[in-house]
């Protein structure tokens, strides 16, 4: 399937001069709804040409509001939204964007091929029908009615619609919801291919693994505010710093080495909390998970105290832990 969407020879050359160009941006945007709910609170963010950005956050974080603003479906209460330097409502800009949204029901009595044909028709230079079909993995079901498809297949058709016009900027709202692992990885490969062709992709996701695997940059939103932004590695590090911020005497560099220890011990929880560097200890029965900012010291004391300690595992906080730390602190 990759063959048909192979990077165009000229694409890297076209992409490189505009590598630092801004494809879309929110500038100090506040969005307040009629019922008083503040969905976004002074958020500024930027999508640069040719990068994949993941918008991460729990439900109600303001992810879809941010996307809707950039798609020109709603306007900000305050601040400015720009897509390709212009108003996102401008029709010419829409010709350069592709959209995949969570849709409850698409017209069911149209064939997959017909859906794609309609969407292709909106764009001046769409991809070929069979390029779209193979990019979205729809071979063999082009003639099926949309209503007859499985959830995963429907999802892939919606993905196909986002690609149809060969747009420069693509919004993907929870693109892999309902896909099995194989289909999800296949879509990831397609999304990476888009980047290699110089496209800009903004995706929202609940899957941290997905953001970690795909994104050049992750933007974490919670309750309408931007909590942090950076590469997956940076987001993890930020989370580690924040989770250790109660220990003010620790140096910043020391905090970068936050580790999670899990093990089985008969020691009481109070004793473990008193060990050097320990910030947090969760116990279920004799199984402990401990967050420490000084793993070597913690381990030395721990092993000295309990000679029968078993099942020791030391790991770096995963993006998932970082995400939880960041969003629950607010």
């Amino acid at each position: 399937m990759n063959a048909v969407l192979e990077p165009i020879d000229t694409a890297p050359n076209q992409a490189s001069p505009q590598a630092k160009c801004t494809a879309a941006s929110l500038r100090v945007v506040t969005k307040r709804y009629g019922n008083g709910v503040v969905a976004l609170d002074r958020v500024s963010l930027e999508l640069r040409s040719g990068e994949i950005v993941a918008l991460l956050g729990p439900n109600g974080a303001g992810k879809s509001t941010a996307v809707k603003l950039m798609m020109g479906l709603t306007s900000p209460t305050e601040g400015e939204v720009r897509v390709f330097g212009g108003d996102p409502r401008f029709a010419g800009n829409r010709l350069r964007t592709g959209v995949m949204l969570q849709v409850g029901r698409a017209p069911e009595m149209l064939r997959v091929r017909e859906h794609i044909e309609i969407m292709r028709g909106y764009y001046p230079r769409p991809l070929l029908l069979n390029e779209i079909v193979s990019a979205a993995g729809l071979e063999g079901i082009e003639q099926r009615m949309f209503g007859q498809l499985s959830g995963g297949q429907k999802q892939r058709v919606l993905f196909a619609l986002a690609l149809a016009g060969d747009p420069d900027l693509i919004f993907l709202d929870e693109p892999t919801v309902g896909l099995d692992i194989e289909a999800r990885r296949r879509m990831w490969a397609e999304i990476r291919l888009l980047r290699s062709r110089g496209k800009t992709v903004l995706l929202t996701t609940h899957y941290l693994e997905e953001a970690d695997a795909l994104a050049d940059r992750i933007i974490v939103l919670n309750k309408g505010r931007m909590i942090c932004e950076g590469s997956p590695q940076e987001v993890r590090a930020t989370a580690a710093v924040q989770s250790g911020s109660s220990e003010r005497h620790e140096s910043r560099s020391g905090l970068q080495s936050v580790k999670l220890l899990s093990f089985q011990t008969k020691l009481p929880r109070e004793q473990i909390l008193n060990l050097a560097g320990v910030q947090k200890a969760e116990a279920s029965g004799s199984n402990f998970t401990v967050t420490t900012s000084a793993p070597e010291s913690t381990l030395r004391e721990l092993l000295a105290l309990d000679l029968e300690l078993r099942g020791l595992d030391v790991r770096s906080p995963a993006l998932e832990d970082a995400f939880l730390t960041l969003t629950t602190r607010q």
Partner: protein
Amino acid sequence: MSSTALSLPYAYSRTNRAFSIFLRETRFEFVRAMRTKAFSLSVIGFPVMFYLLFGVMNRGGTVHGQIVAKYLVASYAAFGVVGSALFGIGVGLAGERVSGWLELKRASPMPPLAYLAAKCVSAVAFGLIIASILCLVGIVAAGVHLSALEYLGICGMSVIGGVPFACMGLLLAMLLPANSAPGIVNLIYLPMSYCSGLWMPISLLPKWLQHAAPWLPTYHLAQLMLRVIGYAPSVDTMRHIIALLGFAMLFLGCAWIAFARSEADA
């Protein structure tokens, strides 16, 4: 490969492109509506069935010198086009709005006018199918005499009548929740049709209802249909056209306000 394979002239005129989008949209809207049996069978089936019950069963009957079976060909043609507009656009678009499909369409480069016009044309196409079946059934089964000119007049009125009710459908689509839309549309459509004399000659209705009827848009469409077969006075034609135009503007204006409000709160 995609860039070379599709090097169509970029400047290929904008209106041309919008028009071809409109044509494609119309074709698929019609195909989709036809394939949706729950829609196509009931929208075509009900006027025809009612005509068989009230028109064909009454063949030869007259009211104030008007042949009931002929009157009902015209009035059920109006009933048909109103139904296809209210259900096709009202219920259809309400579903697309609530499911998020409309939002996806709006975020795409689709020209919104082409989309709405396609739905309108599709509704009118159903209206024409219904009118043609009714004329055929009237001639064959009820012995109605209908000139070619009268048939064309009924078709023409179906096209004209489609517009205000497409606007009404648009307004309903903006206001109604998707799951109760079919029920609510029926609650508006059926009584409105009855009170406007679409089910039986309006002269058989109570006097007070006859006086209230001009407040309903369906009444004016029915009168225009009846004018075509000579069953309504020609002096009032302009009045009915203006009334329909007024209703169309009113519905369209309200739909626009409802849309603007929903967008501000989107």
